[in-house]
């Protein structure tokens, strides 16, 4: 049992730091550059993100392993996963609006954005490819979510400072954001080899 927990912990660390989705797998970049301008939105997005990520990892694991694999229609995984995610986002949108309007007012907009995010789709796809167990899939979802949240928050805090910096005209805005992301990614390469799975 203790061994299992170590494995899970390793999985979370590797998903969030070593194979960080933004810095080493380059996924979710649109959202990453889109919402990292302000700290407040970055935090809101992170919270929504981690929860949706874990739920979608769980639901799509169940559907993949209990429906697609027995029926031998795994080639439909892309269509099914995108359907699951879109449905899930719609459901959580409705539930949140009814149960907690205050929270909906704050986080609702991010929820709508999430369905077009490639990380959310990548997690079930990777889970299916690596043949993770249910618990491992959850851990992978959590780790990836945490990693994305970390990336967003680092980036938002840098970009808030960058507003005051004197950047050459052609580099203003996105190009500069790219260069900064490159620098952070360089730092993140330092994590590789931290844990060998």
């Amino acid at each position, binding site marked *: 049992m203790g061994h299992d927990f170590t494995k899970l912990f390793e999985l979370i660390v590797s998903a969030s730091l070593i194979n960080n989705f933004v810095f080493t797998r380059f996924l979710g970049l649109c959202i990453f550059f889109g919402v990292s301008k302000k700290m407040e939105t970055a935090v809101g997005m992170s919270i929504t993100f981690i929860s949706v990520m874990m739920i979608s990892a769980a639901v799509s694991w169940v559907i993949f392993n209990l429906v697609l694999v027995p029926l031998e229609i795994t080639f439909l995984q892309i269509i099914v996963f995108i359907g699951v995610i879109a449905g899930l986002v719609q459901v959580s949108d409705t539930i949140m609006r009814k149960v907690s309007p205050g929270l909906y007012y704050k986080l609702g907009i991010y929820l709508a954005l999430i369905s077009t995010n490639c990380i959310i789709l990548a997690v079930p796809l990777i889970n299916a490819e690596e043949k993770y167990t249910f618990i491992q899939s959850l851990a992978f979802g959590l780790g990836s979510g945490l990693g994305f949240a970390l990336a967003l928050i680092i980036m938002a805090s840098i970009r808030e400072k960058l507003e005051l910096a004197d950047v*050459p005209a052609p*580099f203003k805005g996105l190009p500069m954001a790219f260069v900064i992301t490159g620098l952070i990614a360089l730092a993140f390469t330092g994590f590789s080899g931290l844990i060998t799975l």
Partner: protein
Amino acid sequence: MSSHSTVSLKDQVLNGIIKENTIFKLALSLCPSIAVTNSLKNGIFMGGAVLFVQVMVNTTISLMRNVIHPKVRLPIFMLVISGWVTVTQMLMAALAPEVNAKVGLYIALIVAFASILARAEMFASKNSLLPSMADGLGMGIGFLFALTTISFFRELVGKGSLTVPTGLATDHVFTFINTKPVLLMILPAGGFFAVGILMAGFNWINARAAAKAAAKTAPAAH
């Protein structure tokens, strides 16, 4: 936006390549622009896959535009896109298995491309077949152009060589620099630098072109 129909097909294609270049101008669908561009060959294949999906999706949506009920249009668009992506992935796996092993995940993620859904929603669902195909072609070529430029730059600087595909499964490696290249450029971090620098270059060229155009029209206005 009914004025689209008066725009010539050629302009429609050019619009996607230059004015609304997905990566350099709109900054959408950025994931593969960094993930697969560490060799020219991967960049070209990825760009080709996106080009194919974009044209096919636009064609399909345009043909179906009178049948789709507006209330359920988004799920149907997603279904059409994911169908074509699945087809592309199967084609890739069958024809170029070696490339597919490297870029397969990103091919699957074409589904989540904002740019493809956006073109389906904004253009193909409102226009007839030929303009929609031209639009898809332009957007796709623009994407292919961006990916080729980025991967050309990265591989040349990072490895000192260029891998040019000569067929679906064959390629030829041209080596230009035999001394130590700038390894940083093919590392993940280098991708961000490359895109940042190229984007700035694109902005600079556009700004210069705009300034020239303004200088030309200014005397005429007097």
